[in-house]
């Protein structure tokens, strides 16, 4: 049987990749994709714990995380389309209206 910590390390790798993606990418679509990576990393953890602790609650939580991810993508992409229409860019370095 595979140790539970292997799943946690895999999940950590995917999550940190998502964090690095948010930090280093300029394209706002890529930043949203990196957030998807992070959400999926947590899902791996939830399902692994649900299996190893023999508790269905983890899988139910993944179900809710999926709902929130779907809502987040719909609203986020709508915001990107509105931004692109207003400013004609998807580069976060150029979206500096609220920068002090």
């Amino acid at each position: 049987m595979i140790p539970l910590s292997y799943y946690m390390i895999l999940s950590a790798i995917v999550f940190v990749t998502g964090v690095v993606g948010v930090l280093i990418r300029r394209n706002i679509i890529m930043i949203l994709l990196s957030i998807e990576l992070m959400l999926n990393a947590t899902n791996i953890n939830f399902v692994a714990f649900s299996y190893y602790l023999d508790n269905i609650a983890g899988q139910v939580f993944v179900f809710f995380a999926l709902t929130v991810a779907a809502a987040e993508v719909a609203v986020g992409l709508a915001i990107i389309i509105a931004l692109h229409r207003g400013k004609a860019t998807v580069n976060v370095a150029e979206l500096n209206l609220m920068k002090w």
Partner: protein
Amino acid sequence: MATLSFLYLGTVIALTAILVVAFRKPVYSVMALLVMFFHIAGLFVTLHAEFLAAVQLIVYAGAILVLYLFVVMLLNVKEDDSYQRQVKLGLGLGLLALTQVVYIVSTAGAPEELVREKTAPVAGNTETIGHALYTTYLFPFEVASLILLVAMIGAILLAKKGIMGPDAGPLKESK
């Protein structure tokens, strides 16, 4: 056999996750993410979460990624997708965080003591989740439907013409 499949799935998931961030063209990134979602669904199957594996494929690979692809192609992004200036700083911070997590997980080893003996399943995976969802988690389930409704209305309103277009005020003078 279980170890072998975990090794394969884990390697592909980690590699494609890095590729998603590393590819310069958004379409390639979306394709790498598609491969990752399929392998995560495979990982769910090995963890006996068959319902979630199916939902992962239908919702993530089927709906969310198509939405991404649609927006990437709709916006027709030019080839100026360079990285931020502080790439090295970001990579260094990520590596630091990863080292910390791996160190904590490998030295503490606490989760292994919590692992319980598997009880024989009384019903299938889908039945069990459905039962939990409609009894214990009934109220969160209703809230989830409300979140989806709000997201739907918000997406329609935000993507509507004229909310941030040339005739709408706030962003115009900053051009």
